[in-house]
């Protein structure tokens, strides 16, 4: 073992060299990603925030609390909440049918769910107008009403809850429900006490995504709602109007409100995910 001792003394430690090469590669890829994100995402958002405060806090507050802006926000939030609830129920039912039921054409139905992801929002609005507008072949005309807002929002948010609940339902071990039945639980009890708690995180994150999409929706609403101020004008359309009139500061102010709502929604989705997986980390 004399060789070991002499060599160990003679050479300096170079164990850190490899680690630093790894760090360099990390830094390079991170640098690329950060640059893109910075130029593309962070900078514009910064410009937005800057503009919103550019004329002072008072102007910001005035813009945000102007009657038309407030009305638009009320309409937006009201409709979005309604849509979120509707999605929670109908989306879950649809996911249930897709996972638990079997009928001819089910795979076709499954494929259709993604249509709102693929279809341009402006086209969505137009197609809804065709069926539920003035020229409706079935005599249903809800154009230029708040119902139209809900309808359009339902279209674009349809896939969200369905697609977040589907995989969870699929993964759910049927033996859980079988065990509950063997222990004497009714179908309803089994659903509410066994299935529901497991799919709830999926429902919630789908609802949060749907809510965020609905609050910010623009293209689908532009045609069918008529954008009547104080009635069917949503915040996104209001902002657009302010931009067209050259009032960038007012637009920015309301935009910041929407931005904040988006952020909060994103954070809550992250929180839901975190809570939902706590069982796996415990």
């Amino acid at each position, binding site marked *: 073992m004399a060789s070991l001792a002499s060599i160990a003394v003679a050479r300096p430690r170079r164990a850190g060299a490899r680690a630093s090469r790894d760090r360099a590669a990390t830094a390079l890829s991170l640098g690329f990603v950060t640059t893109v994100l910075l130029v593309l995402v962070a900078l514009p958002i910064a410009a937005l925030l800057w503009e919103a405060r550019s004329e002072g806090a008072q102007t910001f507050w005035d813009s945000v609390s102007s009657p038309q802006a407030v009305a638009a926000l009320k309409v937006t939030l009201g409709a979005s909440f309604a849509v979120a609830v509707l999605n929670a129920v109908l989306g879950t039912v649809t996911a249930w049918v897709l996972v638990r039921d079997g009928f001819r054409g089910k795979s076709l139905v499954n494929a259709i769910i993604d249509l709102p992801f693929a279809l341009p929002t402006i086209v969505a609005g137009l197609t809804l107008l065709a069926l539920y507008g003035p020229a409706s072949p079935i005599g249903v005309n809800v154009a230029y009403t708040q119902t139209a807002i809900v309808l359009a929002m339902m279209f674009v948010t349809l896939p969200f809850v369905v697609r977040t609940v589907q995989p969870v339902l699929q993964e759910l071990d049927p033996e859980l429900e079988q065990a509950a039945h063997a222990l004497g639980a009714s179908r309803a009890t089994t659903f509410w006490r066994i299935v529901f708690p497991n799919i709830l995180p999926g429902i919630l994150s789908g609802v949060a995504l749907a809510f965020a999409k609905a609050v910010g929706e623009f293209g689908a609403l532009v045609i069918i709602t008529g954008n009547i101020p104080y009635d069917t004008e949503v915040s996104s359309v209001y902002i657009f109007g302010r931009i067209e009139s050259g009032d*960038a500061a007012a637009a920015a102010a309301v935009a910041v409100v929407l931005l904040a709502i988006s952020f909060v929604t994103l954070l809550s989705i992250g929180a839901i995910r975190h809570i939902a997986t706590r069982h796996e980390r415990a």
Partner: protein
Amino acid sequence: MRRSGLQRVGLRFVALAYLALILVGPLAIVFWRTFEDGFEPAWNALTTPDTIHAFKLTLIITAIAVPVNTVFGIVCALAIVRRSFRGKGFLNAFIDLPLALSPVVVGLSLFLLYGQEGWFGSWLSDHGIDVLFALPAMVIATIFVSLPFVAREVVPTLREIGDEQEQAARTLGAGSWQTFWRITLPSIHWAVIYGVILTTARCLGEYGAVAVVSGRIQGQTETATLRVQESYESLDLAGAYAISIVLASMAIFVLVAFTVVRPREETA
């Protein structure tokens, strides 16, 4: 689990009615209305110079945005999954941001950055570069809104595969690029393809952000989606429907691609 026949049929009815009323019905009507008066009016509407230009513009923007976001998405996913660094959660949230933002807000923020009175506005006009109300702004806006898709698809797949195959490749003598090209990329390629399909659909269908930054100058900065709105506003319903049909057909094509690729993406 056995349910009573009535309950099962009931649920099925609710789900199918929901889909029919919200999705299928409206789309079917549009298809009908477009060809109600025959093929010609639709064709004429589609072949006006402005409309052709609009389609071209849409395709050009998509052709630029999709590769950019693909490369970004893959690099991002590799950084998130394979490397450790502070602020990873922050990065994750930032990537998801475009999904939760209203397109109008996106358009506005770009407007404020590149517009005349914007941060870069004076520098750009001094150098004679047109960003706003021109192609560059529209491309940037489209890249912004379709940013997350590839990354979000690749991240879970990368995580699931683990890096043992990459370690094996390194012990066998492969360098970083060789390892990426021969081992990593082939194992994520379905996820990448799926992400690319999602990105493409988003780019083709973008409206709000592009509406703000383009100025909607007919024959110059109108994309196909903007053209639909334009046609509707000028009471050219036939034109609006016709363009919608083309876009809807593209969407259905995308849907078919989903259905084909998704199972492979999930089981890969």
